[in-house]
């Protein structure tokens, strides 16, 4: 089974110039562990907001690629975002869910995906043109190919559910100060604080 840290490390390695937004909890720790970067916007709260934060960036910066990395619980809380993204059809946005089937921060309670709730199915039915389930290295490579193709203007919004082992690797904590996370992210785009 795929390991979340290895998956995120590989995605980060292939990100190119992409801006990244992470959902609270393990997804933020995973991306931080893969390498802190001013182009990462880590959420520490606002559960359910990662995909829409990413859409906001993607629509403000149509020439940049935006990758949202989040967990199954976080995605489920903001599941309507997939419908909103389906309406907007951003061709520079990828939503990647690290699906371990559990609420990892709160004691590993089972999430809906363990009971058959099909996140790529919901994404596809919401109109996202690329919606895939990733369960092994070969499929992970196909996801990276899709992201690279999107960079070259081929294909629209991407959704992927990456099935990962329900492990809790050691936490790798990004900074907590939201103002600093915001300002350093914006500086990478040449935007100054007010």
């Amino acid at each position, binding site marked *: 089974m795929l390991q979340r840290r290895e998956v995120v490390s590989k995605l980060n390695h292939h990100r190119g110039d992409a801006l990244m*937004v992470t959902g609270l909890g393990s997804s933020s720790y995973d991306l931080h562990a893969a390498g802190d970067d001013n182009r990462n*916007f880590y*959420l*520490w*709260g*606002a*559960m*359910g*907001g*990662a*995909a*829409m*934060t*990413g*859409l*906001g*960036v*993607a*629509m*403000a*910066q149509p020439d*940049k690629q935006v990758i949202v990395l989040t967990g199954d619980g976080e995605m489920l809380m*903001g599941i*309507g*975002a997939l*419908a*909103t993204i389906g*309406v*907007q059809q951003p061709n520079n946005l990828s939503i990647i869910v690290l699906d371990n089937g559990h609420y990892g921060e709160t004691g590993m309670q089972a999430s809906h995906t363990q009971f058959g709730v099909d996140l790529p199915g919901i994404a596809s039915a919401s109109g996202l043109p690329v919606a895939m389930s990733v369960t092994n290295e070969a499929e992970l490579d196909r996801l990276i190919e899709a992201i690279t193709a999107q960079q070259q203007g081929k294909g629209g919004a991407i959704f992927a559910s990456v099935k990962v082992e329900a492990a809790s690797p050691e936490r790798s904590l990004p900074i907590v100060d*939201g*103002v600093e*996370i*915001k300002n350093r*992210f*914006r500086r990478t*785009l040449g*935007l100054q*604080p*007010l």
Partner: protein
Amino acid sequence: MSQVTAPKNSPKNSPKNNPKNNWGADLFALLKRHEVSFLPFVPDAGHADLIALAQADNDMQPVVLTTEEEGVALASGHWLGGKKSVLLMQSSGVGNTVNMLSMLSNCRFPFVTLVTMRGEFGEFNSWQVPMGRATADVLSAMGLSVHIVTEEDKLIKTIDAALYAAYSSDQQVAVLLSQQLVGRKEW
């Protein structure tokens, strides 16, 4: 054959179009002056004119949401990318946004929302009342400045001030459009 007719002004009559607001065009022009081109919304009759104007304008991006907290995250992301937004919602939707509003104070995102009120003045539907009564307090409790507009001649001035405060110094402002202004929902 006898026919039962619902009494006039009864909710049993089908909903009618509400009277058009007078300020839609002025507000639209104000948003353009402030270079706001991104309007996330959950529809409300009080915002209908503005939404229609935005949908007809190539330079405006109205974004329909499934729920209002999406708009808080969307506006935050849009500012991360350097662009201004105004979130349009109804008072009942404020209840949906509460935890997402924590993004605004944590990251000090500039933020303006225009909230059309229900359950506040001459409301016929009691189910709107609890959230209408709590709207200003909820927003204040989450750290937003709240301005309540009851008269049309204060509307543009107040929204102008809200946009200026937000986008000159990272403030979070809600402008509540009273039912005294928006008018009673007609049935």
